[in-house]
């Protein structure tokens, strides 16, 4: 699969800030991947996301070194209107991403800004609502939606721009466990059906590790770990970066210290049970 995101020696410092928020980040994202981006608060995750969709440097000026290339275009050179069709960014609070008075009109917001013809907007809106299962909500006003529905509507607004890459900034932080796991299934669905690549900043690792192809850990503006979730989570250093390792993986590490070596690193209790059963046999 081709490379979708190519970040080379990216360093960024906000205007009038002495400290570099990002230093020499190197990252390659292939098409179709689902990547978890983790790290303690203030490690530069949000800044990196904004560098990927162009808010940095287009909206936030500062010292910008290195380069970010998305689908062959230089983020620095292209206007936001072009970038918005390549990269969609879903922010933490869905409330502040729904502008219009009805769900349908809000999904149409992006395509309207691109000055697409009316029939094209209509078909994008209908298709997106069908994909995300929110057709019954079409005429609802934002204040008539639950938190989970708001999250879906906000995501629909992003998907209607037909981006290749969708970035989610802590998408489950305001959701209850059930709605959160529904959102994760939706991510998987969009990934397999539309081939959308995802970069997800997330603290609830137990939900996402199952479908993630990679996990990247940042600390103090640098990329410190990058690999398969099982590799990253079984790395001894991971705890030092404030990442809560799923209990199945933690148990694996504990067992390894006791001399019980399992064949694979389990990410979920079901995997662990499976392997323990095999040992017993």
């Amino acid at each position, binding site marked *: 699969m081709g490379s979708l995101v190519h970040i080379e020696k990216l360093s960024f410092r906000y205007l009038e800030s002495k400290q570099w928020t990002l230093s020499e980040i190197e990252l390659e994202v292939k098409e179709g991947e689902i990547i978890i981006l983790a790290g303690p608060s203030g490690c530069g995750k949000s800044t990196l996301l904004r560098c990927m969709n162009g808010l940095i440097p287009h909206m936030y000026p500062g010292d910008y070194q290195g380069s970010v290339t998305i689908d062959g275009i230089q983020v620095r050179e292209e206007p936001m209107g072009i970038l*918005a069709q390549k990269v969609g960014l879903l922010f933490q609070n869905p409330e*502040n*991403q729904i502008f*219009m*008075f009805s769900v349908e009109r809000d999904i149409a*917001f992006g395509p*309207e*800004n*691109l000055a697409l013809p009316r029939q094209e907007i209509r078909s994008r*809106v209908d298709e997106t609502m069908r994909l995300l299962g929110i057709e019954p909500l079409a005429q609802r006003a934002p204040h008539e939606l639950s938190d989970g529905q708001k999250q879906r509507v906000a995501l629909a607004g992003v998907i209607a721009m037909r981006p290749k890459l969708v970035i989610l900034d802590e998408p489950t932080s305001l959701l209850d466990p059930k709605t959160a796991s529904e959102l994760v299934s939706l991510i998987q669905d969009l990934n397999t059906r539309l081939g959308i690549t995802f970069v997800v900043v997330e603290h609830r690792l137990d939900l996402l590790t199952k479908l993630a192809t990679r996990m990247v850990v940042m600390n103090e503006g640098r990329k410190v770990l990058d690999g398969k979730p099982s590799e990253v989570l079984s790395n001894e250093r991971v705890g030092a970066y404030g990442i809560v390792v799923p209990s199945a993986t933690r148990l694996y590490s504990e067992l390894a210290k006791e001399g019980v070596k399992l064949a694979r690193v389990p990410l979920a209790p079901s995997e662990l049970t499976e392997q323990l059963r095999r040992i017993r046999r």
Partner: protein
Amino acid sequence: MHWVAGGFVFRRVESPFHKLDPRTKLLISLEFFAISLLAFAIIQVAIVLASVLFVAVYAKSLKRIGRTILMSAGFAGFIFAINLLFGVGLVSSLLYALRFLAIVSSTSIFFVTTSPDELEHTMKWLGVPRDIVFAFVTAVRFIPVIMLDAFQIMDAQKSRGLELEKGNFVKRIRNMVPILVPLVVNSVVRSGELAEAMESRAYGATPKPTSLYKLRLSRKDKSVMLVSLLFFAAVLYIYLRVKVPV
């Protein structure tokens, strides 16, 4: 206290009047407005008020428009009293007060029956610049959100011992400072997030954005407009020609 926020939220009502094009409703509203402004006899204003109420019944919005009239009744009373106090005759004072009510109710016909969405389309149709229309849209969209924010802050501050209902008038106003400061800070943060989300969805990418919906005058709209214009002309004629005792 959530009912306060509810007052600002548009409620969709199924009525033939609601289904009209917003421009038709605007025209009717403006006609009523002009008629009430030009009325010079109590009987005329009374007829205007009655007609407005008739339209309100037709639009299944009597309750909301009635509430608007009741809320402005206090101010109408004030107008009446001031006029009377300054030597304007009893009848004229009453006329001014009633005229005020007629103006308020005729404009509220438009605002009560028009969804914010339609209002947005009307503003665009009138040629209001897009940034201003969008500022208006977000302002209306976030009224309930910011109201709920305010209630949450009030609850939080009360639970930390702030006594909102205590003290004299000045003290009570000063009590609002711990509510307003976080509310303003919250709103500023919110507006920053809003700006980011707008940029990310290509706001301003093209000078002439398109729209999912377009206003279209149906045949019914055209006939309603025509009839209302005829009525309007007739009323103006009566105003000019027919002598009515004040």
